[in-house]
């Protein structure tokens, strides 16, 4: 029971840490917008940063208002927040280009000098809801959790876990690089661990504990496959985003060449949305993307399935109903209900 208590304590701490992380992330996001300045840009930058501060406080106030209990309104506020965030982020990404255009001539070939790829990545993250920090946090916690389950006294997984933590630190950078290297790295780590410390798991059977240790190893491997697939997926999305950006510039150049002028940001926003949507539709339509998406989901389901199995194994000593036991119960209820309904129908037909 001591081990169980320690498990719950660590689980609770992990939850607290997760929420602390979320709060910190929210604060950073707010700060980013409240303090947003564009030094060197001719004009009154405060002209739009001030309303932003006011707006943010209004949003925060309204969200915390106890009187607003309507979930649809709350959800909508959140979505509007997300949409405007992306709108403003696009503004931020293209601001240096606009500034350059104002000061001197810019040509389509040179536009990339003015675009910060990391900011553009943030914009794409917002559209698709990617959060590399959250992914890192999730993987980190999963590893901590597995470390605990493996037996804190033995520290069997410690070397592996340390190596994984280091690798996780590099996640955002890797996300922009070569996805296959991520997969290779995790598998090399896993193999190295399996061939050294992991040998201990291959000793003669030690009953349920051995099964648990094998499951832990399996979970670690699942996590590595998931992380690699996730990176590959995000990489594909980013690359398409960059291609779309090239197309946006091409379209703008075409318009300018034909004598049109793009004076409003909204016009630019429309071109960006339409061009990006087309580029992603082209990607989404490919068999390769459909396959990759399927594999990503599959890998996440593997993680989930083995984690559940592991948790069941740990919770089996407690006086609570486990998921597999509830599944059996649901099946029994389903079968009984079906039989009763069939009999009732037969009775009704006979009565008629």
């Amino acid at each position, binding site marked *: 029971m001591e081990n169980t208590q320690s498990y719950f304590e660590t689980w609770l701490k992990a939850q607290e840490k997760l929420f602390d992380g979320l709060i910190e992330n929210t604060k950073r996001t707010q700060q980013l917008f409240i303090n947003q300045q564009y030094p060197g*840009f001719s*004009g*009154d*930058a405060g*002209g*739009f940063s001030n*309303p932003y501060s*006011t*707006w943010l406080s*209004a949003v925060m106030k*309204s969200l915390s208002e106890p009187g607003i209990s*309507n979930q*649809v*309104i709350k959800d909508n*506020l959140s*979505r*509007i927040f*997300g*949409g*405007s965030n*992306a*709108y*403003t982020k696009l*503004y931020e990404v293209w601001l240096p*280009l*606009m500034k350059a*255009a*104002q000061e001197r*001539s*810019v*040509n389509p070939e040179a536009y990339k000098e003015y675009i910060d790829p990391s900011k553009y990545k943030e914009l794409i993250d917002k*559209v698709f809801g990617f959060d590399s920090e959250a992914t890192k946090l999730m993987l980190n916690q999963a590893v901590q959790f597995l470390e605990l389950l493996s037996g804190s006294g033995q520290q069997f997984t410690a070397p592996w876990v340390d190596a994984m933590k280091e690798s996780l630190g590099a996640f955002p950078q890797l996300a922009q690089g070569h996805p296959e290297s991520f997969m290779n790295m995790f598998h090399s780590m896993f193999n190295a661990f399996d061939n050294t410390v992991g040998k201990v798991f291959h000793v003669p059977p030690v009953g349920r504990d051995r099964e648990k240790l094998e499951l832990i190893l399996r979970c670690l491997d699942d996590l590595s496959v998931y992380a690699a697939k996730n990176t590959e997926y995000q990489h594909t999305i980013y690359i398409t985003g960059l291609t779309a950006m090239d197309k946006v510039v091409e379209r*703008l*150049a075409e318009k*300018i060449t034909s004598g049109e002028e*793009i*004076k*409003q*940001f*909204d016009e630019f926003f429309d071109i960006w*949305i339409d061009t990006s*949507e087309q580029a*992603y*539709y082209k990607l*989404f*339509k490919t068999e390769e993307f*459909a*396959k990759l*998406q*399927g594999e990503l*989901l599959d890998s996440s389901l593997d993680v989930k*399935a083995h984690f559940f199995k592991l948790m069941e194994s740990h919770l089996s000593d407690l006086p609570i109903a486990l998921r597999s036991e*509830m*599944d059996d119960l*649901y*099946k029994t209820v*389903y079968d009984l*209900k*079906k039989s009763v*309904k069939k009999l009732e129908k037969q009775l009704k037909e006979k009565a008629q």
Partner: protein
Amino acid sequence: MKAPFLSFDAQSLIKELGDFNTKFIKGVGALTEIDEIDVGTAPKELIYQEDKLKLYRYSRNDPNTCRTPVLIVYALVNRQYMLDLQPDRSMIRNMLDHGLDVFIIDWGYPSKVDMYLGLDDYINGYIDNCVDVVREEAKSEQVSLMGICQGGTFSMMYSALNPDKVKNLITLVAPVDFSTNDALLFNWSKYLNIDALVESYQVIPGDFMNGGFLMLMPFNLNIRKYVDMLDVIEDKEKLLNFLRMEKWIFDSPGQAGACIREFIKYCYQENRLAKGELMLGDRLVDLRNITMPLLNIYASGDHLVPPAAIKPLNDLVGSQDKTLYEFKGGHIGVFVGSKSQKELAPAISQWLHDRDSATQSVAETAEESESAGIETASEEATESTSKKPGRRKA
């Protein structure tokens, strides 16, 4: 010296973004003043309940002019109140106004106890029970079945198994041939490991399904929609219209594991329904058994269920009286667009009246409809594939 590439005016850009944020602040204020988002307000009465399913009959102030009751079978993916989103965008009210006796199934929100419910339970269990209740309530031997989207596919399956209970079949944006890759969902589903998904979730969360729908047009659905919304946010009525739709979009029930597994596997991945290989319980679903009049409606701009997945139904059924109706618009526009209210709903009502028993009141209604121009609108928009020329009256 190259030609100037862009000619933005910094001051006006700043003003533009400033205006945008000002709209935001006002909009958020307007949003927080709204207490209730009412949907599905047409009066109705609960007449049957089984597990989480509820069957309603819509109230009428005057007697119906079409004798055969209409049972609406909605998809499991979203909620049926889409058909009665608001009083002036309500296919239900429109059908009631045109003299129909309308019943609707509310599938409810499945929980884990429902995870083993399969296609057989939905089609041969729930729908069959509802059809029997409607027949009894309306004192009618048969019903007109009107299936929407996935509910339309269910209605085809049911009608093929129970042609004696279905007088007319209407399918709206309902897929039958899943071999097409014209829409992303069809392509993506082929690579979906549905067994692992169901094993993991048991009841697939509505949010999971919504995530997939949003991915179909991520830039428009995640960004532009909310940026554009700011232009109407100060108009309370328009804002409420927007919010009603938002409520519907994100009000997604979970999917009972066994049912979604069979639907994805048998339909999307193996195309068994169109191939005539689908078994429900111990019975083969043969679409050629659909011999009743068929009205098959598709939307030309549907990005969820493309016309290529819908149109083949008319070639697969055994009906002599079959009509293919093209709606110029998208998947959702079929139910809430102004064209839907002005053209489609009256056309459906007219089509049903035409196939109903000839009674004094029916004849009067048809006359009224024709004088209101509904017949003309219907014929213009309808591409009839009927082998028998003219309309049939029972």
